[in-house]
């Protein structure tokens, strides 16, 4: 292909680039690149899950999941994240219809669900630490706080990103750059929901069955 480009340009000054290069619009590869980032993030979580799976039974004579977890609270938390996932979907649908106001409104709802999730998670952590179940207490608790905390940190940064993007869309509208950012954030947000399925299953439900 490169050869063809050069031969075609032989009459003029030689040009050393692929013939199809100019056809790629700006940012066309961003979603794929972001997906690759998410896959590498997935590996981080896989390692943390492996650590929890190995160390999750080492209580060091301290509290076990049955003493600490409240499944009602976890169920509410799961509902918050699931609802935020579908409201983000509605924001994407509004964006596809070029409705700036509706997009912003659905993003705001998504952000509120995200904050509710974080609030409940922080309450849970606070409650556990208050009971003396700190990360230093046992290998189980170290692994628990690392895994669940890493997920919570992702949701925190996702929420920050969401607020930033709302300001961007409010100021500049649904321009191609902002649409691209929306696509990436929606992947990020739904990806965090997928990770949460692993968290509530492996950490909370399996912990209670142990």
């Amino acid at each position, binding site marked *: 292909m490169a050869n063809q480009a050069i031969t075609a340009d032989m009459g003029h000054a030689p040009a050393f680039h692929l013939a199809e290069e100019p*056809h790629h619009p700006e940012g066309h590869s961003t979603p794929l690149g972001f997906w690759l980032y998410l896959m590498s993030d997935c590996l981080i979580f896989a390692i943390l899950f492996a650590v929890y799976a190995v160390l999750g039974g080492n209580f*060091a004579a301290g509290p076990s999941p049955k003493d600490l977890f409240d499944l009602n609270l976890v169920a509410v938390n799961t509902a918050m994240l699931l609802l935020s996932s579908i409201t983000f979907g509605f924001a994407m649908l509004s964006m596809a219809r070029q409705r700036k106001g509706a997009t912003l409104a659905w993003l705001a709802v998504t952000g509120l669900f995200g904050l509710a999730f974080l609030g409940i998670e922080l309450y849970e952590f606070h409650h556990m630490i208050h009971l003396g179940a700190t990360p230093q207490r046992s290998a189980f608790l170290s692994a628990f706080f690392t895994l669940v905390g890493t997920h919570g940190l992702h949701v925190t940064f996702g929420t920050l990103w969401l607020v930033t993007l709302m300001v961007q869309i409010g100021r500049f509208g649904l321009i191609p750059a902002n649409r691209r950012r929306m696509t990436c954030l929606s992947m990020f947000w739904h990806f965090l929901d997928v990770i949460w399925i692993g968290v509530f299953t492996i950490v909370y439900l399996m912990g209670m069955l142990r």
Partner: protein
Amino acid sequence: MSAETHADHGHHHEAHEEPHGTLRDYVIGFVLSVILTAIPFWLVMAGPIESKTVTAVIVLALAAVQMVVHMIYFLHMNGRSEGGWNMTALVFTVIIVVIVLVGSLWVMTHLDANMMATHEEMIRR
């Protein structure tokens, strides 16, 4: 401005398709997710099945199904997006994840079985 964005958009379309689901996709995904979340919580909280092993296997299987549901209906995964590279990356990642998880558990349980029980473990037994 509007015409410009439109022309720009048309140009985009061939090389770069925005992954957009329909309202139907999102609603189906949401309803399936609610069902697939409610069943495992109910199984663990109400405990209708005696055997913990059977419950655990069902809970894990439902989680795997729900992950696939999210991938299809929320993340719009299919073999065609980004010319198949999304799927390639996903399959590669899943292989690595399985090796990490299964490998860690396999090695560490063997290691555990071959070690002397610690003081605390003897008390627990």
